[in-house]
């Protein structure tokens, strides 16, 4: 098992270096200069000497190779530098915005699991009944519905209902408050985005849970368990669901990793100041240091989550562990 983990960690290194190279190149391909944007954001005349000085201070006058080595070295030493736009440490900028994104992602995952696993299981157990058809249609509809449109619809619904009830439309607050400070206000900020994202997420998971359960229910050991006269509840919970959840765990992990990098649109719809919006702002401002750090954060989360899933998978399934 340790050899497997070490091998996987070594394989992650080229992925991280490749992602670093890609984001580095892409950020340099985007036309514009952070110094010009910073000085000319008010539409005033930009002094060429001041721009040159700014570029020198930010290290933008170095060769691209040196800039890339600096970028890589900053990740080896865990000193991610300062934002080229605000001057604040990158770690601080991210720490300010990460909680809201992380909370939405975690809550969406919890909602998805709570919806998907029971419904997927029931759907498989009641195969080809009206209940199964309803669940399957709901799942396909969930996959077909863009989460940002669902967000817009939920906002329209909330605004219209509140306007009818109180005469004034209500919108979720946008200034983030941590859960432990004001739980009610915190939930009023993150619950709607989490539900809209969680529905789509649950649709994908529900389909896989159903198909995995159907497959497992046709296995010989389930027939044996039934022949032994075991209670149906024990057969489902202990034998079927436990085995069917293996691919589902993988999917949940992969979807979670994608979610962290894909919250941009949801944050836009709900005016949330998460890392998705920060990333768009960083790219628009040509803040290379911040944009690179955010992309690397997303990639690292993706790689780590994938590694954890694979290790978990190998731990749960001895056939994989010993192969």
């Amino acid at each position, binding site marked *: 098992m340790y050899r497997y983990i070490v091998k996987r960690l070594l394989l992650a290194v080229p992925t991280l270096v490749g992602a670093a190279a890609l984001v580095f190149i*892409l950020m340099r391909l985007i036309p514009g200069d952070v110094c010009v944007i910073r000085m000319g954001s008010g539409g005033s005349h930009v002094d060429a000497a001041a721009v040159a000085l700014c570029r020198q201070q930010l290290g933008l006058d170095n060769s691209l190779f040196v800039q890339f080595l600096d970028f890589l070295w900053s990740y080896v030493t865990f000193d991610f530098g300062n934002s080229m736009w605000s001057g604040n440490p990158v770690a601080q900028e991210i720490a300010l915005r990460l909680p809201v994104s992380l909370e939405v992602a975690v809550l969406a995952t919890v909602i998805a699991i709570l919806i998907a696993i029971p419904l997927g299981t029931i759907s498989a157990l009641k195969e080809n009944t009206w209940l199964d058809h309803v669940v399957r249609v709901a799942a396909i509809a969930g996959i077909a519905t863009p989460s940002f449109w669902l967000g817009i619809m939920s906002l*329209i619904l909330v605004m219209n209902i509140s306007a009818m009830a109180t005469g004034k439309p209500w919108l979720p607050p946008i200034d983030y408050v941590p859960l432990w400070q004001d739980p009610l206000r915190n939930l009023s900020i993150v619950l709607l985005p989490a539900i809209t994202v969680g529905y789509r997420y649950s649709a994908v998971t529900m389909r896989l849970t159903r198909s995995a359960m159907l497959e497992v229910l046709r296995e010989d050991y389930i027939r044996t368990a039934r022949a032994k006269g075991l209670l149906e509840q024990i057969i489902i919970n202990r034998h079927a669901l436990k085995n069917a959840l293996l691919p589902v765990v993988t999917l949940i992990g992969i979807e979670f990793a994608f979610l962290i990098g894909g919250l941009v649109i949801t944050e836009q719809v709900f005016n949330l100041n998460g890392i998705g919006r920060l990333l768009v702002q960083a790219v628009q401002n040509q803040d290379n240091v911040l944009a690179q750090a955010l992309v690397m954060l997303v990639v690292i989360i993706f790689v780590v989550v994938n590694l954890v899933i694979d290790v978990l998978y190998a731990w749960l399934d001895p056939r994989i562990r010993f192969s």
Partner: protein
Amino acid sequence: MTAIAPNPDVLSDEALLRRRTPWRLALNFCRRKPLGTLGLAIVLVIIAAGLCADWIAPFDPEENDFNAMMQAPNFVHLFGTDQFGRDIFSRLVFGARTAMLVGFGAAVGGGLIGLVLGVASAYFGGWFDLVFQRVLDVLMAFPLIILALAVVSVFGTGVFHVMIAITIPLIPRCGRVVRASALAVREVPYVDAARALGFSHARIILRHMVPNVVAPFLILLSAFVGQAILAEAGLSYLGLGVQEPVAAWGLMLQGSAEDYATTAPWIAIFPGLAIVLTVLGISLFGDALRDAIDPKLRDR
């Protein structure tokens, strides 16, 4: 000597051939897969709407009419008008053209590149495969939004550039699935035979291996069309895709949530429904196609 009576369950070669004509296969598909047929019908209607948009749309989709701003659905404007007085139905019909162009263009482009690269990776193996896998890892982990921003910033906005931005992330997804299937094909004797005959790598990959991984590829392709339509809508909504005044479903949703939620909710409702209906149709057809092509994957 008595003649042997033909077994009624065994079909003659002629009957088998007659059974496998495309028309009969299509008819069989429609009979066995009603939901898939419904999905196909929805997709065909949307494609037809996009192709015949000039004749179907009652109004110019880009023309503002400040005397008809934010009209609720009525007999003149079936789905109402937006904040600039533009007919929403006409914009939806023209938006179908954009959605289909980007959806099919990105799916076919990304799918074909992924298909060839995936098969090549499995065929060559070794270092090529190892490097290719790491490149796929990087592209899979990379946020789509950065790629889209880079493509749009470098090349500018527009339907073609949006298509490129969406095509790139589809390549690794296709490449990975196809590679897994191609690894099995690589071991079969006819590939060894082709190699022994001295055929070129390109010929072995394109003529002998690619046709044998077409089944998973087709299944993947149908899923990609839906994903590409959703991605286009998302990028246009963020202002990174198709730009005003071109009609695109995602673009029609931009700024419509809070601004007109209580006064003109139809501005947001109909474009979203168009996206849902189209992707639903593609998903239903894709599911049925997968069942028909690969019975092992049935019920997944």
